[in-house]
């Protein structure tokens, strides 16, 4: 009841979806579309648990009052504000004017509607808080790619040498300086990018495909049950 039923559900659904793939009939297409929607709904409910786990993590820190309690407070309050502005639509009214002096305050009405329209506080929070910070995290790669290549591109072994030679050629070949030195460098870098690179990718992909499929088969057939928790048993 606790293990067999889930495994059985898993098997049935798996087989259904495999069969569905080969059936172009409208009914099967409809099933496919519906199921996809269902999956997302299940995920969303799981996400609620995730949020709770995040909140609990920081609330305990707050209660314990450990040295980073303030940042936990930040996390909790930003989470709360986002949810609030997201589920309740704060509609900003124009700020009123007294004798030509623009009062810098404004009323806002609250309604339970999607706060997703552009210019709402929710979207502002997204646009001016999340987007820039995520973009900045992303741009840290410029620094790390530099430090990584210095730290690790050492010709210790023939393999490592190949790695770093290929990297250096391509790096130089991608900037004008490469052309200044010799037009052969860009040509070579393109060639490496297109040929050996593609061969390697293809080899990996075939292997990955097989490994993944056999894993998936084992799950559907109830041989691999690690997703239930615990090992193979």
């Amino acid at each position: 009841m606790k293990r067999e039923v889930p495994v059985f559900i898993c098997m049935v659904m798996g087989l259904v979806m495999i069969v569905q793939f080969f059936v172009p009939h409208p009914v099967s297409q409809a099933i496919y579309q519906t199921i996809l929607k269902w999956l997302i709904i299940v995920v969303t409910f799981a996400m609620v648990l995730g949020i709770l786990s995040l909140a609990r993590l920081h609330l305990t820190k707050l209660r314990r009052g450990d040295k980073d309690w303030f940042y936990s407070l930040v996390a909790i309050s930003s989470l709360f504000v986002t949810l609030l502005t997201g589920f309740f639509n704060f509609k900003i009214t124009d700020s009123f004017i007294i004798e030509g002096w623009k009062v810098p305050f404004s009323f806002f009405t609250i309604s339970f509607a999607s706060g997703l329209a552009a210019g709402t506080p929710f979207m502002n929070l997204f646009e001016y808080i999340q987007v820039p910070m995520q973009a900045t995290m992303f741009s840290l790669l410029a620094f790390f790619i530099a430090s990584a290549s210095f730290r690790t591109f050492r010709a210790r072994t023939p393999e490592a040498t190949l790695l770093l030679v290929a990297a250096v050629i391509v790096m130089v070949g991608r900037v004008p300086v490469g052309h200044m030195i010799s037009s052969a460098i860009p040509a070579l870098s393109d060639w490496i990018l297109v040929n050996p690179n593609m061969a390697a990718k293809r080899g990996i992909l075939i292997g990955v495909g097989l490994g993944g499929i056999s894993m998936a088969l084992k799950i559907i057939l109830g041989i691999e049950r690690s997703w239930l928790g615990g090992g193979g048993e």
Partner: protein
Amino acid sequence: MKNKWLLLLIGIGMAIVVGFLSKFTFYSTGEGENMVMHNWLGLTAAAILTLGIFTFLYKDNPFYKFAEHLLVGSSAGYTLVIYFHNFVRPNLIDAVVNGFKKVGEMQSAGTYNFVDSILKNGGIWAIVPGIMGFLILFRLSRKLGWLSRYSIGFYMGTAMGIAIPVAFQASIIEQVRGTILQTATTTPTPVFNLDFFAALIANPSWSAFVLAVSGPLVIIGIFCTLIYFFFSKEHTGVVGVFSKVGIWFLMLGFGASFGATVMARISLLIGRMDFLINDWIKGVILPLFGG
């Protein structure tokens, strides 16, 4: 010392929250047609937080911690809200409500029959994922936590069932074809193309040579890489040699894609610097101080 930091950061936080709720945050440039509204507070907050993330490169510090926790909290909430509004609301709440409405109408119209009202009624079916979702919430209880496995099983099975055929097509069938034929072309040509060799013999040149050998080389690379991923045999003897060549191809490929990525990554940094210099300093700070 610590408290000063806290006060400063709390100040910034309050400013941001208040700022987003008031029109005060906007100032305009230009007139009529091409008047542009700038959210100076928004841009300033963005800039400050951008700097906050950058300070992480030097070492962990309150500034970064603040930005980090702000980002984690808000982004977590954001995803939930988006998922709710885009998926749960239309596909669960609205669907179920409409489903029951439909049944009600049929009853009031006297045309009620089980098949049409339940089986053919998509809205009613939308209850199923609702139930699945609620089963997951049982994880909160110690005793009934195992109920959540039902929905996870449902999810796993479906996902795996969808994955298997797709994986076969994408990473086996297409790859095999791609190894035999140059599939990007409108009329596929063999990867091992004798015409190229003919051209090479006709008028020997470096480029012709490269063109001719590239195809066979790729094929060798693919086979050797596959042999590297062979688990039934220790990498010794012939297998060892081939898998060695396979590793060389892997390394060449990895090195190349590493090198090719550098430019894109630096472009990102340029983008951020561009934001700080042009959008913020030149766009907000200088105008604010009449610059």
